[in-house]
């Protein structure tokens, strides 16, 4: 099987500091320039290309990075991830329409709300076995939607309308249809999330999560405060979902319970699984492909969820590590030894 990950890792590891900066800046520049490539083969016949870049692609990438902390890093199956997205979005919707706070002020509040609900849900749920956790989170995702559907304050099935766009910063104005501005904003959030995950993974937290994922009992017996780190993974995942929600609401300007169905949780899960649980680049690639293809290939957009379901089954059975599996440093080392 082709091994893109090791190839990439090899190139990266063989670079000096300058080389790495050049590669990183180059990659970011290419990604940032994507909105200008609508005229090429990248164009999407089903929906407007630039808006597809924002949603689903960039939004999926952001959420997939968040969910990956939970499921890929620490092996906790969260089937209600959409709840945090919804909580972020409704925080934006409510505060944006009822107060004078603007998007940038609401963003930290939305993140905090999502983290807070992550604690509320996680502290009891993370004491349970893995498959019970799956059911509890599944239920939680649905509950949040049902609450939104039935509480007058949240607009019931009509949802919340007239949510303000973000105020301009540095002279950049956010108009409703200026997709590329939103895209770049999301890109910044994505880069922040990548930075956070990479940073944490390389240190104590990353090792704790990894040990929990592989053998939780052994971890606990060798001094890893497993419960604390599981809650942290859950809450950090929630924070990213919440941030995505705030931006989503501030982009669509209209949210309703129908935007936050179980299917979203499953879509994001599919992105993570398809790309490669635990490997952030795999997860990003997975989200890009699964976000993009249904809008690129017409027949896929009808059967989007069907295809995603198939992806889950096929990947799990044939390539459970995804298209870009988590790191297997071993190989690189052995190669170095041989040379």
């Amino acid at each position, binding site marked *: 099987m082709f091994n893109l990950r090791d190839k990439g890792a090899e190139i990266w590891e063989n670079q000096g500091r300058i080389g790495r900066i050049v590669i990183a800046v180059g990659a970011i520049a290419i990604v940032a320039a994507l909105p200008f490539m609508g005229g090429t083969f990248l164009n999407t016949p089903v929906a407007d290309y630039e808006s597809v870049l924002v949603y689903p692609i960039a939004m999926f990438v952001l959420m997939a990075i968040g969910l990956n902390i939970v*499921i890929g890093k620490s092996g906790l199956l969260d089937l209600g991830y959409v709840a945090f997205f919804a909580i972020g979005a409704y925080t934006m919707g409510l505060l944006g329409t009822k107060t004078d706070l603007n998007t940038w002020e609401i963003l930290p509040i939305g993140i905090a709300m999502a983290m807070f609900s992550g604690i509320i849900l996680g502290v009891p749920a993370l004491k349970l076995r893995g498959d019970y956790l799956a059911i509890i989170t599944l*239920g*939680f995702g*649905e509950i949040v939607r049902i609450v939104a559907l*039935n509480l007058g304050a949240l607009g019931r099935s009509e949802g919340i309308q007239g949510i303000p766009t973000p105020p301009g910063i540095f002279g950049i104005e956010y108009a409703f249809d200026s997709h590329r501005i939103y895209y770049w904003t999301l890109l910044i959030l994505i880069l922040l999330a990548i930075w956070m995950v990479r940073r944490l993974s390389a240190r104590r937290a990353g090792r704790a999560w990894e040990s929990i994922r592989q053998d939780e009992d052994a971890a606990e017996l060798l001094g890893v405060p497993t419960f604390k780190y599981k809650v942290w993974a859950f809450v950090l995942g929630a924070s990213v979902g919440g941030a995505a929600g705030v931006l989503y609401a501030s982009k669509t300007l209209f949210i309703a319970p129908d935007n936050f169905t179980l299917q979203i949780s499953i879509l994001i899960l599919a992105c993570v699984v398809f790309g490669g649980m635990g490997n952030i680049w795999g997860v990003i690639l997975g989200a890009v492909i699964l976000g993009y293809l249904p809008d690129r290939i017409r027949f896929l957009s*009808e059967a989007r969820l069907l295809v995603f379901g198939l992806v889950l089954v096929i990947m*799990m059975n044939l390539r459970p590590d995804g298209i870009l599996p988590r790191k297997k440093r071993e190989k690189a080392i052995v190669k170095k030894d041989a040379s």
Partner: protein
Amino acid sequence: MIGNFLDQFWSLTFGGLSLGFIYILIALGYTMVYGVLRMINFANSEIFMVGTFATIIIIRDLFKFTQVSEYATGFRLWLILGTALIFAMLVSGILSMLVEMVAYRRLRRMNSGVLAPLISAIGVSMVLSESVRILTDSRPVASPRAMEKKFLGQFFDAGIRIDNTIIVISALVLFAILITFVNKTRMGKAIRAVSMNPNAARLMGINIDGVISATFLVGGLMTGAAGFFYTLKYENTSAFIGFELGIAAFTAAILGGIGNIKGAFYGGLALGLLETYASFFLGTQWKAVTVFIVLVLVLYTKPNGLFGEALTQTRA
């Protein structure tokens, strides 16, 4: 409010009981599979959903009922109901076996841990519900009424409706058959052996794959029957029905102690009644929330279920 409740108590109770029996049958699907695999069969909810459609296919397409048809009576009525029940059970049972082959079998051989089969089962359940959604154009489908919903009698102020009665009696019969199967037949005993101790069972020469297949089949048969009863009672279904009923039935299984067949019985009844009473006070839109809260409370306080005997005893 309380006065109203007392007035309606018996009619609520009958409705709750028949809903409870539907839950019991679906919960059996979860509980039996959990017994042998120690895993939640996430696709069971969609197996139920397919059972409801199988029922409609018989009533609407085979027997050509429409919303304006005359009700069937006598032998013809029982023929229709019997055919629909058996068809729903078979479709769901076979589908359940297929689900096991597609979602679980290979991963079991690879010894892949819990996460992978869970995800794979979620994938299968997505494929099932989406296929049906596309086929039905996302619309709910009504089942024509083949049977006049007569009242058989009165109990205090509540009428005893024929469909509720049929559901309770047939579910009891199915449950009795299942208990007999598990306790008396060779395969039933093998299923119990595997759920108590898979390794010992293997050493005793039991074909584990065969037993697991059989368990999915039996669980699917029960879940399919629930699909028929549901359609009989509510005369309506959709591609999305599995989720709500599935999580409720799973809660029932947990309530009774998952893996425990008798527990599914008590858990189903308890949840059916509880949900019906709670909906009366809070409104049906909070039904799912009630169920979820029950699930959470039970998992935290009594993870082995309220009616928990030692898990290994009456395990499936």
